[in-house]
């Protein structure tokens, strides 16, 4: 019956959207987490940002909006959330980092945790001296392993602009380190 087939089509479409989002979670949540972590340097907050990123993406999808490149979209949403986050965030001391429950592989030793925390503090200290935009570019390129083409899809810049911004960010970072 015609009306039933319309209903079935709609149900199938909804199921397809759900599946798409869950597939995107399975494929990209690790990367989104890493990106968020290296921007906010807080495990719990990074986890929350992952959840918020996917929820916002679902809100967008269920309104009927189409997303061609889900990965780029997720990074965009995450970055917007992180920008909001950076407006509220205050400086953390090494002590704060050490108190956090930083996840590393199960077969750790106490000295490895300490080394890890020192590494993290050093990298964070250097990164935090950069403007937010440069931090984003460095993170996308060197933590997330995205090439300028991918980054251009996320930021909306053209590929040349992305390369220029990356080079400037690296130059600034080199001066810091």
């Amino acid at each position, binding site marked *: 019956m015609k009306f039933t087939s319309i209903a079935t089509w709609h149900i199938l479409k909804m199921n397809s959207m759900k599946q798409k989002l*869950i597939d995107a979670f399975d*494929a990209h949540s690790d990367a989104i987490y*890493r990106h968020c972590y290296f921007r906010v340097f807080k495990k719990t907050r990074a986890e929350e940002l992952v959840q918020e990123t996917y929820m916002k993406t*679902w809100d967008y999808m*269920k309104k009927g909006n189409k997303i061609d490149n889900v990965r780029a979209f997720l990074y965009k949403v995450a970055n917007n959330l992180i920008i909001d986050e950076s407006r509220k965030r205050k400086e953390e001391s090494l002590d704060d980092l050490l108190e956090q429950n930083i996840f590393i592989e199960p077969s750790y030793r106490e000295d490895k945790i300490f080394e890890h925390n020192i*590494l993290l503090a050093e990298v964070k200290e250097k990164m935090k001296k950069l403007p937010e935009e440069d931090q984003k570019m460095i993170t996308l390129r060197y933590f997330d392993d995205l*090439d300028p083409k991918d980054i251009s899809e996320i930021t909306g810049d053209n590929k040349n602009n992305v390369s220029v911004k990356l080079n400037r960010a690296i130059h600034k970072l*080199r001066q810091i380190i």
Partner: protein
Amino acid sequence: MPNLNFWGKLNTLREQIKFDQERKLKIRNFLINEINNSKLINESYDANQKKYFWSGLVISRYQFKYVAAFATILILIISGSGLSLAAESSLPGELLYPIKINVNEQVLGSLTFGDKAKIELEARLAARRLEEAELLMLSGKLDNDTQSNIESNFEKHSQNVSNGVSNLESSRNSTDAAEITSKFESSLRAHEQIIRKLGDNSSEEVKSRIRPVEAKVKERLQKTSSKRFEFDNSIAGRASSSSGEANNILKNSAQGKIDTATVLIDALEKSILNQKDLIAPEVFNLAENRIKSARSLIELAKSKIETSNYGEAFNLAQNAIRKINVANLLKKASTELKLDGGLKDESDDNESDGIENKVDGNDDKASVQSGFSTSSDFNTKTKKGGDERRDSEREEND
């Protein structure tokens, strides 16, 4: 510590920072839950701003609302009028109520597929009758005719649930049967408390009409609770000689229940904190107590997993889910019906003495996780390729 330059340190950290897989799974389950509960239509309001709240059978709410929306549109097309839409918000005794019951809900039924979904629909309709009763009680419009109408329809849908559950049992689908029974029990328990509270707040005349409805709900609650207890014992005691594979299935089911319960607990906690100003203090405290209680049950369930008592773990997690469902319904009643308290945190579940057994079917986690793959249609770069590119880029800049 190795003497690394900055980039080396950065690379080392890249390897070390990983998404906690347990936490990842919890977020995944939360996401699935939220997707399934997404509102696809707005609840309909009539001209007098009457508002419905939907008591939650968590898994079925998505299907019910979605099918309700589409059925309404379907009816509109067929009837060529807005009558059916207006009927959706009607109450017993009103002109359009027969259209709601005899047309709208029949169409809903015809658009619901699968035994489990049909039984869940019946449970939702039984709850819907109680919601209608509560709105009538609140507005003082529950008279003899509407009272008997509600009682008979509630009884009809409840009996359909009971018959459906028996059929599932006979067709050896006892896990679905147990799940439906558990959820229906949560719904009835919450409504029983709400109706009792409404009765306490009413005049003697209205009270005299509310009490019979309350008694019917209580009677059905007792039957459902007993049935659920039977299922608990069955799950706990069925397979003392489980095979390794059967034990694994049970373990996974129990773990799935624990994960689902954890997600629901977190979601409810967040919800009551966000709505603290809107909820009566007693209800807030009740919800907090239930959350604490549910968390304790989950910790106990986890310890049962560690000692391989998977049946007990399953039942404890189910118990936690029931507590959260009831708390959620009461919270909604507090905000929607503006109940100002008087809802008691009664002990509502007998914990089962679960022992190891076999589970032959779905649980909450499995039912929402069907068919998910890790396939991706997006480009991903190999690590090796990425490293080479990054290194050459850095060399250019050094």
